[in-house]
């Protein structure tokens, strides 16, 4: 059982019951899986939520993770989107310390990364940026020299391309 470790993106549909997040999180922790991000929200069916989970591990480890996740009674489907054609996106809000003089420069940089300035204070600006995680990473790297006052990221959400019916993927969805 070996292989190289990499980041996987899994999407799970779960029943919207109290405690379901605890069950999922408890399983991560006790089995020692390394979760990079977790995003949860409503989905197309009332009474259910969809989770996008980014987890690092070898393919075997992540397969085991997927199986353990699927064992939870309230988890309806699990799908690993890592090697399938999928859209993955994340949003970050960044408050940057910036003097009035530097504002135009920062606005330019944000523009290049398709970021949006959503708030301007006397010596700060908040940039909202949406895209794949690597783009956000690069943006943060570029603006680091101005001083990041606060950063919050939503975690990745992901969706396979093509209609559900067209994918003859795993029976688990």
């Amino acid at each position, binding site marked *: 059982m070996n292989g190289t470790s990499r980041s996987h993106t899994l999407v799970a549909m779960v*029943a919207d019951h109290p*405690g379901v997040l605890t069950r999922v999180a*408890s399983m991560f922790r006790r089995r020692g899986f390394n979760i990079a991000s977790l995003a949860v929200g409503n989905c197309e*069916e*009332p009474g259910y939520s969809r989770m996008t989970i980014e987890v690092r591990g070898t393919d075997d480890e992540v397969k085991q993770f997927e199986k353990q996740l*699927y064992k*939870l*009674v309230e*988890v309806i489907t699990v799908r690993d989107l890592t090697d399938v054609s999928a859209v993955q996106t994340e949003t970050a809000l960044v408050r940057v310390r910036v003097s009035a003089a530097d504002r135009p420069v920062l606005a330019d940089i944000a523009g290049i990364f398709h970021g949006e300035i959503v708030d301007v204070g006397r010596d700060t600006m908040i940039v909202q940026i949406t895209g794949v995680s690597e783009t956000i990473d690069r943006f943060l790297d570029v603006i680091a020299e101005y001083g990041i006052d606060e950063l919050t990221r939503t975690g990745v959400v992901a969706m396979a391309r093509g209609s559900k019916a067209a994918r003859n993927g795993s029976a688990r969805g």
Partner: protein
Amino acid sequence: MTATESNGSTNGAVPARSGGQVICEAILAEDIDVIFGMPGGASLPFYDALYHYQDRIRHVLARHEQGAGFAANGYARATGKVGVATSTSGPGATNLVTSMANDHMDSVPVVYITGQVARPAIGSDAFQETDITGISIPITKHNYLVMHADELPRVMAEAFYLAKSGRPGPVVVDVPKDVFLEETTVPAPDRVNLRGYRPVRAGNLKMVRRAAEVINASERPMIMAGHGVDISRAAPELFEMATGGNIPVVTTLHGVGGFPETHPLSFGMLGMHGLAYANFAMGETDCIIGLGVRFDDRAVGKVDEFGPNAKVVHIDVDPAEIGKVLDTEVPIVGDLKLTLQALNPLIEHRERRPWMAQLNEWRENHPSLDIPDSPDTVLPQEVVRSIYDASGGDARVIADVGQNQMWASQHFWYEKPRRFFSAGGLGPMGYALPAAMGVQMGAPGEPVWCVTGDGGLLINIQEFNTLAAEKIPVKVAILNNAHLGMIRQWQQFFYDGRYMGAFLDNPDFAKVAEAFGLRGVSVSSRDELHTAIADAHAYDGPVVLDVHVDRVENVYPMIVPGTGVRSVIEDPR
């Protein structure tokens, strides 16, 4: 609960029942006639419901909730039904935690009904409020906090279904005090429909054919049979496969009895204290046929030495067990019985003379089960052998944890499933006595022997009171070595004899038994032993035999942790 997630068609409205009554009806619907528990404030309304059902549901008052839980485990394992244990909130529920973890590790179906503080008090740190659903998440198959009596008919049906189907396990139903009292007209669903839970049936046919090819082509195959054989009632199919294909069998601790141990194709139990030849076989095999096993580390030892040249065929109902430990050539997710029914007709009978000769040579030259001479002391192995002889091999034996557990598994030849019971996964000392109570309740009239260490007995000795009060005719054989024997053995082997916390200053257990109202017998010689065991076997009430055995006897064979099936340490004598 949402409309989409709930379930099953219903039979239309029925007369109002209290939550407590709904639970009693659900227990009856499962054909369960005995439950185990201890009442308390939060569960009193449930006990009031039980009061009205006492002609149909026998409630056995355990003297500690852990005892109730282990007894429910024994009852479930003996009967194949679901066990039920109940407690109050707070300390009652937390006392059940070890038992839940034990069921979870050993895949035993038990439903726990725990009382909870009344709904308005939840979350307020009320008297005896404990978040048992939070606590039990990692040690149960599933759990419920039931906030409305209207949910209870569905929740109870789901709880029993989840507990017993697929890979069985414990389910907790936590019921606030006022929900036991609340009335509902919602009927029990006639089937359970859980969208996220669909246990598999027979394995994939293509894989089954592939398994047959691999097995038929092998020169040195070994079947490794586990708990799944009993859980799936697949002993006849296992027998057919082994004898039909001429394939030798080893079992795990929980597989003991899945294949008759006196059969020439049986090579006994493998693992840390398994038979030398069983372990040698697993080092040399070219095809491991894992049937309802999870390749636990105590069975496998060092993975690199375990069938390093073997192709692995693995059949299990739990997809997460497949490929978890070993690289698997043929993974089959399926119910074992159904899958073997499909596979067996494809298995060819092959002589495999060199392999059979090798296995039999190992068996000849590494006898593993000879009991050494001991002129001055009774050996613990002899106690187990004596029970075997007195019962004609047909007793149910419940072992505790430690050396006694290994001797009980080794020195008795189990011919059928559900004859040997042991808490193999969690290994909680104190299991045997309460579990034996449950086994006896599930197998009335059958001889039931609890084989326990002195240390383990003390953990749940309060259940002597239950044996006496309920007249449960369990025979208890204490392998009294005045030590936490397994601890002493490890300290002897691995800590150069620096004994720390291994000695036991025991009470006179025969007197203790007598004080509890049980027949107590103290045994210190070989002659006394055989008489006492024969007498106990013939007696129709509970008996406690305090057998003073050799204090420093070790369990052999032994595989040192960190090493593998090729480095078995055998009895030097």
